[in-house]
């Protein structure tokens, strides 16, 4: 009697373990179709929630330099700041190509915001740079403009919705934590914005292309499976 009940419980344990494995494997196989259903809803929700108002700054004393982890996918590209030009083109009436001296003369915006990584960590950082909005104004986007693409010197690529791109806290930054932006953090220019996850904030940005359509290649990590909107 006792032996029999032991056998049943052993069988039950095996059944539970088997069911668990099936669920685990199915979870990996099905994540993509699940995302195809849920991501459009979540992206719509993210766009709806996005406030055009700036989020409150943290005090400068709150910065956490030791918490900022350096992530890149191909290492640090070498860029000569003397010959560097930022190109803004696409669906604009006035394509521009700006050197760093010109960009440094534009209004400098400083903000202390939290950078949140998709991996789960976060760091409060002070950023200094120009508003992307101000740069786009120079190029004068066409009324059909809906998306902004960012190409980086290391081959990384990203695309953003226009509303997030013209947010008052979306910067092309060249200062970090009170100093010149270090090369490993994206010098000479990188995207910095509290409203997007870290993978949306391209480093070493060399080209900004305004488009009216979302192109098939939407972003390095997005093309591998991450959500495109990535709002916070």
């Amino acid at each position, binding site marked *: 009697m006792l032996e029999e009940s032991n056998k049943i419980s052993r069988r039950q344990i095996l059944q539970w373990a088997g069911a*668990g*494995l099936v*669920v*685990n494997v199915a*979870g*990996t196989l099905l*994540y*993509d179709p*699940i*995302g195809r*259903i*849920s*991501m459009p*809803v*979540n992206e719509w929700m*993210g766009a709806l*929630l*996005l*406030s055009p108002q700036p*989020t*409150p700054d943290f005090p400068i004393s709150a910065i956490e330099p030791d918490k900022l*982890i350096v992530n890149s996918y191909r290492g640090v590209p070498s860029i000569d700041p003397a010959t560097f030009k930022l190109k803004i083109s696409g669906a604009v009436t006035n394509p521009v190509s700006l050197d760093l001296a010109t960009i440094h003369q534009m209004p400098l915006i400083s903000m202390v915001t*939290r950078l*949140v*990584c*998709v*991996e*789960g*960590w*976060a760091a409060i950082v002070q950023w200094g740079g120009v508003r992307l909005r101000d740069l786009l104004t120079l190029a004068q986007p066409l009324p059909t403009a809906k998306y902004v693409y960012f190409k980086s010197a290391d081959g990384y690529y990203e695309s953003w919705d226009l509303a997030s791109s013209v947010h008052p806290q979306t910067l092309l930054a060249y200062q970090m934590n009170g100093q010149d932006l270090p090369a490993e953090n994206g010098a000479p220019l990188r995207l910095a914005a*509290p*409203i997007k996850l870290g993978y949306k904030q391209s480093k070493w940005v060399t080209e900004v292309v305004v488009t009216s359509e979302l192109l098939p290649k939407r972003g390095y*990590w997005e093309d*591998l*499976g*991450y*959500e495109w909107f990535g*709002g*916070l």
Partner: protein
Amino acid sequence: MSTIVKKSPLGQPSIVKIFHWVNLISLFGMITSGLQIYNANPVFGGREGIHIPWVVTLGGWLAGGRNWHFAMMWVYGLNLLAYGLYIFWTKRWRDRFVATGDLKALQASSNSKRRNYAWHRIVYTSIIPILVLAIASGLSMYQPVQFYWLASLFGDWQTLRTAHFMTVPLVLLFTFLHSSLALGVGEGKIATAFLKLKNSN
């Protein structure tokens, strides 16, 4: 015998059983996919920290875990909202959650079944703050900028992450206590009443 079980006051409407099952399954999905996300950068110790074994994670990698987590949150959240409206609408909240009678019973009653039932209702009621904590801390991490007023209630980011993670052991502890008590009260009739979708005649 079966008619007695069917007419028992413990018999639950199908809608309650559906709420219960959807909650159970979606919470299971939230926990396993949440542990997958956790592994990208463990709450305790960062990248070199304590990782969760892959067998209890869902999604295969970070993007997969996030897809499941942010799909399942709708099922979980909407089910909970529907349940909340239901208990409010049917006035069920009046007699399902812990009441002063339960506390009196624990102090005074020598009836072990009554005492068991009081414990059952106390534990059952505890899931409400646990689920509210899960949602508040989850929303704070999901939209820390748009819901900055909510996120700021949790202090710094590490505290927020820890609070959200704590919902996992709390839910597991709850599940253990709640199911033990449900199986114990009325010789398992409560458990049967809430879990069996079809009455066995």
